[in-house]
């Protein structure tokens, strides 16, 4: 496929022509010593502002633009009807402090979503509060700590496999826990290594299944047994949930805590980096510790339950990213139990199909089936002086967003590919054909890629060496080399 991204030499807002400032009379409104005299935000025509951002949007690639196989990010189609629902005044224009009697629709939706997610995960209770997956992890670890403390135990060791997402390490690190990383064996958790790592200080073992190689951890029940025998809890990182809907569940696999990424599995749009939503589900023994409030129902209707004496408290203001929760709820209704199972069927089919066709073009370490994603390696191209970064940049010239690169770390020159269920065979074939062509291209073309994007290869080293994070720091002047 040929592709040329738009390019506008679009000036910064601050460099556009501004109408003059108008005086505002603050006398009697603001104490004189607090009054602000000047605000350097340009006064522009609304039409020019719309044009500015429209032009910028044309220099951006989304899943509505093209294939976006970013591994572990689950970039599937974001259905448009959920956008319409989220924009309803009955979603947008209600205040979270309103009396419960005036928000019964919202509370009912939250209540039902709590139950739907619990059902999907095989858990007993769900909080919708966390704003994103990483915050779900943080919440889950706080819950684990509260659970152990309630039993009179201080545990501070979190065990992670070397395939774990970076956020697992960061979440445990933020909480001051000791982290023990265990190596994988043949792309799966090494049970022996796990057995020797666990002990009376083990707070939790965090695992995503399938793991970040896309490989299903078949020994998950043995893993659970080892962790539980040591008194620890088993934490499910839900980033890869798109692989297992209706086939298995974290509950069935004996996990105690799970976070969901609604912006992955349940297709709330990623918004160029957020918002997301990271609900957390738990088994019964952990339910008393969930953040306040939970939504409950009684004879008088739905209400917010703050009367939870063992609760860990709050991880963010109010009840969660409601407008995203509405989208996820509508998506689950639309798909139903049967449709969600088909989601995973097709996600897994698509990933294995690409892997099958790519095997030989690139290396695919570790044999066997994959689930929703797989990791290929470009190390065979090292002799040509070609690295994964070059392949990734060149893919853009063909109109594809590159996969996740250089992760997980145990695969050299990794490309982590997750096609999702909403792509057709035609798209998958086109992507494989492009990759096949790229690995046979002249290395010079790859080194100088991308050629067809708005800008050419960006100097990220320079950006980090002399950080310029605002117009103020730039002195409003763009650097030239």
């Amino acid at each position: 496929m040929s592709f040329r991204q738009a390019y506008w030499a679009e000036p910064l807002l601050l460099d556009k022509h501004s109408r003059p400032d108008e005086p505002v009379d603050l006398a009697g409104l603001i104490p004189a010593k607090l009054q602000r005299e000047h605000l350097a935000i340009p006064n522009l025509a609304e039409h020019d502002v719309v044009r500015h951002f429209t032009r910028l949007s044309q220099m951006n690639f989304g899943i509505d633009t093209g294939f976006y196989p970013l591994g572990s990010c689950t970039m599937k189609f974001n259905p448009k009807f959920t956008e319409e629902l989220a924009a309803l005044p009955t979603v947008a224009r209600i205040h979270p402090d309103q009396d419960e009697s005036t928000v019964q629709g919202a509370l009912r939706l939250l209540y039902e979503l709590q139950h739907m997610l619990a059902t999907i995960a095989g858990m007993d209770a769900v909080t919708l509060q966390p704003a994103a997956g990483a915050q779900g992890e943080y919440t889950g670890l706080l819950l684990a700590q509260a659970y152990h403390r309630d039993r009179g135990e201080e545990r501070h060791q979190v065990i992670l496999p070397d395939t774990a997402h970076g956020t697992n390490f960061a979440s445990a690190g933020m909480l001051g826990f000791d982290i023990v990383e265990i190596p994988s064996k043949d792309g799966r958790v090494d049970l022996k290594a796990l057995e020797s790592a666990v002990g009376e200080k083990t707070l939790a073992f965090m695992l995503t299944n399938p793991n970040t190689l896309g490989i299903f951890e078949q020994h998950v029940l043995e893993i659970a047994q080892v962790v539980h025998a040591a008194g620890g809890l088993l934490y499910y990182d839900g980033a890869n949930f798109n692989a297992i809907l209706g086939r298995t569940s974290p509950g069935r696999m004996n996990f105690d805590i799970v976070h969901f990424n609604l912006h992955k599995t349940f297709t709330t749009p990623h918004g160029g980096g957020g918002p997301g939503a990271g609900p957390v589900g738990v088994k019964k023994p952990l339910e008393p510790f969930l953040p306040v409030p939970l939504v409950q129902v009684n004879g008088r209707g739905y209400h917010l339950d703050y009367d939870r004496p063992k609760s860990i408290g709050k991880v963010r203001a109010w009840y969660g990213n409601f407008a995203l929760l509405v989208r996820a709820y509508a998506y689950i209704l639309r798909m139903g139990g049967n449709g969600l199972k088909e989601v995973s069927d097709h996600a897994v089919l698509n990933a294995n199909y690409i892997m099958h066709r790519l095997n030989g073009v690139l290396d695919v370490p570790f044999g066997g089936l994959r689930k929703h994603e797989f990791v290929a390696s470009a190390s065979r191209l090292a002799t040509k002086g070609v690295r994964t970064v070059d392949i990734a940049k060149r893919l853009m010239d063909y109109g594809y967003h590159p996969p996740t690169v250089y992760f997980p770390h145990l695969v050299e020159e990794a490309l982590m590919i997750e096609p999702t269920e909403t792509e057709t065979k035609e798209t998958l074939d086109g992507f494989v054909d492009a990759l096949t062509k790229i690995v046979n291209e002249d290395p010079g073309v790859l080194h100088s890629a991308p050629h067809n994007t708005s800008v050419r290869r960006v100097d990220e080293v320079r950006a980090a060496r002399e950080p310029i994070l605002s117009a103020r720091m730039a002195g409003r002047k763009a650097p030239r080399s």
Partner: protein
Amino acid sequence: MLRTMGLRSIEDLFADIPASVRIPNLDLPDGLPEDVVVARVTSMLSANRTVVDMPTFLGGGLYDHFVPASVRAITGRSEFYTSYTPYQPEISQGMLQALWEYQSLICELTGMDGANTSMYDGSTALGEAARMAHRIHGGRIFLIPRALRHNRRAVLTNYLVGTGMEIREVDYDRETGMLDLGELKGALSPDVCGIYMENPNFFGRFEEGLEEVRGLTQAVFVVGVNPIAQAVVRPPGDFGADIVIGEGQPLGTQMNFGGPLLGIFACRQEHIRKMPGRVIGLTCDVNGDRAFCMTLQTREQHIRREKAMSNICTNESLLAIAAAAYLSILGANGLRRVAAENVRRARDLAAAIDKIPGFTAPIFRGAHFNEFVVRHENGYAAVHRFLLEKGVHGGMPLTRQLPELGDAALFATTGRHTPEAIARLLKALEAAP
């Protein structure tokens, strides 16, 4: 596709999931057509009473400001909202420039040098700011105002788990509602790593002592702001603040029953390498053309793992774009008009309530932004119930949070209340028991 792979059925693709962990299916109803789902969800949500149906005087961190339709048109560009974090800068220049412009606008509003692209909300921004103060200073104690919304304090508490830090409260002056500087002096010690103040504060009252506070201590000075108010008051940067945070929802995002929200986070240049979250930097491409990319990533979870400044990964970028669009559409003139109008309307509403026998508003003397505390001689709880019966939603009861105020409430107004809405409130208050 199955044939290509030499497989017979979809089931073959799941052969690696052992029978011992299989489930037969999901115990949920079958899927529904799109139009049925839309009708059902719309109908369920129609049980909500919006601020359009019912004049509502809630604030406390979230406000019902008018959002120009162009803001939604901009964030509704699917090139923006269906993209992921801009890991690949060459194909993501639009998002990167827009976020860099957001950072620039936030710096201008707050008087800071660098900003990140967002935290989850104002409360988590406070949690991250306290952790950052600890990283910068090393001290263990973080001072917060007693007049702080309880959900912010609750979140802050959870963000400090594992840091060894301790939160201590500084009281407010009972006459003015401002932070009690005498109390603050008494609370200072070499172990205080940071001081947090809000301007306007929880009571809607402008804090007039920021400069004095800066003069009192070398601890990291964190100021929480309402971004719209910053258009008419001198920014924290003028008073030597180190970190400025805030809830960015007033900048072009609807209240959405409390989420998604926008955590504003900005700081002085000397601290940027200790700042949490994604940041966008200005650079150039191999041709020397201006370009933007995510930068300082060695602070972040995917590189630094457990040594990262924060675990934040997914943030609230699209709301940052909304804020940039909102600020650009209003411009300095529009924003200053909106801010001044908020002050004027809150002042007038407080005066009108104060005239009603039995009511005092505001209970603190001095300048307020767009909210203020109201007291009724017989307590607010009965008034609140009465207003609801009359189809008006009064302010937020403060009894549980700050019992010393004696059953008072926090009332907010913005430019969005119609004269009819105000009249309905006043009429109902006059009739209140």
